[in-house]
């Protein structure tokens, strides 16, 4: 549904996005992760047809964005970071103004706007948008992104201004929209937020895609390399006896707990050996780095 080929954007000689190759399938909830300044928003601006790439191409539903931005905009919805509205108009008037660009007739506009305002809990709010709180603006932003019932939804830092209740409602809404078959592209620097709703992620750093896949795949790909060695954590009830196996490289630990570095996953052999020596195993697992740590390390690189 979304595809980029060597997508590049250069500002004043500095590449904000540098040869990005990305693919997001239909109906996916894709998390676009990266630290501030990594090029996430710039990528979204190119994908939504709001700025032209310096190099490369990007496609949404098979349409090349730079060549036909208007048709792309007809099938997408976009919630910008720090979304803004016309302060002299109510939420309903703002939505009505945007809805007119889709050629909707008055009746359709009225029904759609009422439905969306109810969805984001802004129905019955008579205030002008200029008097809205940041959270209310964010919710209205979500409504304006959905005004055309888009196939693809781009959300840039969607929970930035929401309170916990708003965040919960947002997560429910995203899940509901994904259930309708919409492709959702969530850009955020908050891993926990992306982890909560996204099925696949891409990590961007300094304008380049560092990794893409499920969270576990990405974490594994980003984990610090230890050659081909695996780390096995063992905890026993009794004192750990000396373990002898040709695959073992090293053993670190104390009386009941050890971390074994081995050339391969030898958990079956280890458990059998310990069982033969009458040692009760409380825990035996492959040690994988915490996802947060892996991402933080990638952010810092």
């Amino acid at each position, binding site marked *: 549904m979304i595809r980029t080929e060597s997508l590049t954007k250069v500002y004043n000689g500095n590449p904000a996005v540098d040869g990005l190759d990305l693919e997001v399938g239909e109906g996916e909830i894709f998390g676009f992760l990266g630290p501030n300044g990594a090029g996430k*928003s*710039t990528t979204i*601006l190119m994908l*939504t047809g*709001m*700025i032209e790439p310096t190099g490369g191409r990007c496609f949404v539903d098979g349409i090349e964005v730079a060549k036909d931005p*208007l*048709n792309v*905009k*007809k099938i997408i*919805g*976009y919630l*910008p970071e*720090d*979304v*803004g*509205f*016309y*302060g*002299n108009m109510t939420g309903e008037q703002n939505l009505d*103004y*945007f809805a*007119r*660009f*889709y*050629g909707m007739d008055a009746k359709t506009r009225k029904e759609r706007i009422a439905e969306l305002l109810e969805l984001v809990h802004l129905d019955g709010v008579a205030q002008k948008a200029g008097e809205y709180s940041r959270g209310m603006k964010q919710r209205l*932003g979500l409504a*304006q*992104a959905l*005004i*055309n019932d888009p196939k693809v939804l781009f959300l840039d830092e969607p929970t930035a201004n929401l309170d916990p209740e708003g965040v919960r409602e947002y997560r429910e809404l995203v899940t509901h929209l994904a259930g309708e078959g919409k492709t959702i592209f969530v850009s955020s620097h908050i891993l926990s937020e992306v982890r909560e709703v996204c099925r696949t992620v891409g990590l961007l750093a300094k304008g380049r895609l560092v990794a893409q896949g499920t969270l576990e795949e990405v974490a594994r790909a980003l984990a610090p390399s230890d050659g081909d060695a695996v780390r096995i954590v063992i905890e026993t009830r009794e004192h750990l006896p000396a373990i002898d196996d040709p695959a073992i490289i090293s053993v670190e630990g104390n009386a009941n707990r050890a971390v074994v570095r081995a050339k391969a996953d030898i958990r079956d052999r280890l458990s059998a050996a310990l069982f033969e020596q009458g040692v009760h195993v409380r825990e035996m697992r492959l040690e994988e780095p915490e996802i947060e740590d892996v991402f933080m390390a990638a952010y810092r690189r």
Partner: protein
Amino acid sequence: MALDRLLNVARKEFSDHITSRRFVIILGLLLVISTISIYDGIENYNNSLEAYTEQLRQMEEFDDPYRNWMPQKPSIMYVFISMMSYMTMLGGILAIAIGFDLVSKEKETRSLKSLLSHPVYRDEIINGKALGGIGALGFAMALALAIAIAMLLLFSVVPTAEEFAAILVFGAVSLGFLLAYFAVALTMSTVAKESGNALIYTLVIFFAVSSLLPMFGAMAANAFAGDPPEPPEMGPMPKGVVRTSSSGGYSTTTVAQSVVYGGTEDPEWKAYEEEMKTYIEKRRLISDISNLLSPQMNYYTVAIAVTNPQLSSMIASPYDTAPEEKPGLAGALGRVWMNIAALIVFPSAFFAATYVKFMRMDIR
């Protein structure tokens, strides 16, 4: 560019303008001052009309020695002369007020990003904004003229077809003047990141082209035309003819000298006269060229041609004798075609600059 999207933007902008407190206050002030000055103008017109009727009556009653000279019937266009001076001030402020934050405010509130995420091209947005502003200024101008015409009719002053046409032309010229400053404000709004800066830049240009430019024009004329020719040392005292005309903030003084010696003109004085004429024409040319860049000066020149064609004719040709026939509207406009063209070119150039800048604007 699709008309429906352009009109959607224009409709919203027009509605924003005419419902904004800023616009309503300035327009209200403009209309109040307009009403008062039109009222004064009608009184003056009625007095002039009475004087004219009295002159005609006296000419019929007495054997007037100046039978060939006919007093001129006052035109109701004189009523609009006073409109020029406050149009350049309050009208200019109104035009700046609606234009200076048209784009910069959208950048500040980030509504531009939201707008651009929907299926609308940038040129449709900027053209729609310009169209909405032009519509609001046209609405203000139409309201001012409608009040003026209503007042004329209220005081039983009925314009002829030609006068009505002149009123419409005056309205169009005034609108052209307002558009000049609206275009400047819109450009600055697109260039500046903040509305405050956009307003300051616009005011700087406003004062530069309305006050500094004519001043520099006069200075340049003095510098380039050199010293005026010296009159001949000997000879009879010249008979000076001084014509002074003034109207609504615009005044001009022309001096012509002629010497008659023994029934024929003195050749030295004649030569001096020619040199003086050339010198004054040269100065005027330099000054006029610089004034073409000033919407104020162009507006005055064209508006005078519409409201007082005779005065306009005198200004245009100070050495010609006053024409017997009252010059028509078309003739008067023909004489100031360069100023009309400048009134069109000035806003067009700024609109073009706005368009280019907006199309290339970074919206991050």
